[in-house]
């Protein structure tokens, strides 16, 4: 492989880590396992670096490799009764790929949207999504019922989701 091609490859690979992570996480549904699969995917991409054609876009190719890794992972973990089986993951792959491809823009939009949340709502989001605290624990700490927390969280999520979508379409 030529030096400049390899260099290009390395840059693409590292530049798209967030998007690949988003793709894998979306289908695997767990951050720890997603990190595992991302590692496997990176290794797989490395091994196949020679097949990489710099004239073609990197990301679709990388998503394809990631998809195989995710499916293998889901098959390996069949016993764990995961939500998604390989078949359903295949069905979702296209939508997930489209969203993951714009993950950086989503993240940038999200950052601004987070800034608009009230203090309490922001804390709720941080506890659940930054620090992965279980809902039960959040409810206990806040001295509220589990269902009250769920309702509150769903409302904040919807608010965030809509805000992000607005910004994305404004960009486009």
């Amino acid at each position, binding site marked *: 492989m030529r030096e400049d091609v390899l260099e290009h490859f390395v840059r693409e690979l*590292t530049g798209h880590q967030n998007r690949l992570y988003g793709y894998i*996480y979306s289908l695997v549904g767990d*951050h720890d396992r997603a990190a*595992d699969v991302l590692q496997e995917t990176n*290794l797989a991409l490395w091994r196949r670096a020679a097949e990489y054609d710099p004239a073609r876009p990197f990301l679709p190719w990388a998503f394809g490799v990631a998809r195989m890794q995710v499916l293998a992972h889901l098959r390996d973990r069949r016993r764990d009764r995961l939500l998604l089986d390989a078949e359903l993951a295949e069905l979702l792959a296209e939508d*997930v790929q489209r969203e993951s491809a714009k*993950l950086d823009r989503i993240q940038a939009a999200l950052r601004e949207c987070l800034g608009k949340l009230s203090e309490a709502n922001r804390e709720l989001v941080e506890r659940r999504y*930054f*620090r992965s605290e279980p809902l039960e624990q959040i409810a206990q700490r806040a001295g509220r019922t589990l269902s009250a927390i769920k309702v509150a969280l769903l409302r904040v999520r919807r608010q965030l989701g809509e805000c992000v979508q607005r910004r994305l379409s404004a960009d486009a």
Partner: protein
Amino acid sequence: MQAWRDELEELLLAWEDGTLDDAGADRLRALLRASEEARRQFARWQALNAALWLEGNRVPDAIGGPATEPMGGSVAEAVAEHRTVVFPARDMDEAPLTRRLRRWRSLAVTAVALAIGVVSWSLWNGLARPSAAPFDVASPEVAQAPAASASGAGGVLSGGERAESVASVLPSESRSRGVAVLGRVLDARWAPGEGPREAGDPLLPGVVRLDEGFAQIEFFSGATVVLQGPAELELIAADRAVLRRGRLRAHVPPAARGFTLLSADLQVVDLGTEFGVSVSEDGRTEVHVFDGLVEWSTDGTQPRRLSAGKALVRTGKELLPAGAAAEERFVGLLDLQRQALDEHSERLRAWREWSKQLRRDPRLIAYYAFERQPAGNRRLVCDIEPRDPEKDGAIVGARWVDGRWPEKGALEFKRPGDRVRVHIPGEYESLTFAAWVKIDSLDRLFNSLFLTDHYDRGEPHWQILSSGQLYFSVRPVERGEPGPRDYKALSPPFWNPSLSGRWLHLATVYDYHRRTITHYLNGVRLSHHQVPAEQVVPTRIGTASIGNWSLPTLPDASFAIRNLNGSIDEFALFAAALSDEDIARMYALGRP
């Protein structure tokens, strides 16, 4: 539509919370199978989750992206820059690389390719396959185990060792735009806005403003100047600088001949000498030659020579006749060295004093001051008083080198086997780890500071990731038992190659009662983590290694090579959560 959308979101919320029951899972699957709209909704929901998680894990990055100026900053600055790290999104537009770095990169890439070969080999052999690992470790470790073990399996392999750091850090390689390095610094007060500068800091082109004291500036060309405050020196290139005001003395060895010093209206080209230049507020420039020869010229004039023992003075347009060089007015390297040595030994004395007191601190579980042992003695004395030889460490491989001061020892960990074995009995709650560490490079995914042999309930692992992040974790459940995972306290990256070879004070406090973990660099907090209650357990050590992890009791010892590439010259372990002040004091009194 609203109804199923609400239902879908509720199911997803339960799913990610781990509380979705079988009926709920069936329902969720059915929704996703049946509706395209539901699938689109799912993809958006998950993408937002991923973005939230990435956002929540954004941490300062000393290495990354366009901030590729690790050569430019002091430790404080390196820590100050905030960037995404865990899965860094790199800027695709990079400034042109220098030739040298290109070569480095291509070497690194080749190394990676080689390493991958080894990795796949060991995967096929089932050696490093996470599921085939002889024990259960926390997930990121498992994930990265193949690369780590590849470097072990392959023997020599600086290639394999590089693999992980290249994969994760490659585009952020340090590009040096520096032209000089700050050498000795004595009683220096930097102008406001200069930021703290320390000996060893690389200097970029630009103006150095020294209000007071002395600073030795070592140009990459080999020329060295001693700048005497108040002074302003503009660094232009490795062989070129402008003295705007103040006084300096330049030492130019033959290799650096041609070093050019400019003032407002004078140019001095050195022909291999030692000379002094001063520029006063009113624009009066003096050049004194102590040794050898310089060539000087004013705008557009023919260069003229000035030889040893001579001086010239220029005021405005007027050129005064050369007098005798006044050597005593320019502080030189030797003077600076002498004074710095005094300061050095003063610091060493202060540290020894403090270290003597520390030994009686009842909170200490283990303390190794790393005072040099006679050759052949492979015992690292545990310096707690009253003395407990049971806690002495066994030095394996690691060799004695100079520590923070030349008079003091340190152990250097270089090869995959190097370590200090210790046995520390007992059960504890809070713990504080503190060490003076010199990192040469972070070659491994995990670079050990202190790791228990196993990773069982209550056992702490203290290490540095190849990304330059301090990493502390304690396992909350027995191996193989269900329960919460360990809490991984990851500091922002504090290390980049410009800190290579610099003594750093690292500390981590595990506060059992407050349920917090706090990381420190040079006496200052790097990060503070609140740990969920179920992940906090009492601690124990047992057998452990300083500077390595090897699981020597397991048959497959090639698993996960984690030796530190660097040196340690003090290590303290307390059965207590030390305060910010304690840590800051430890740094202040131990600073070399």
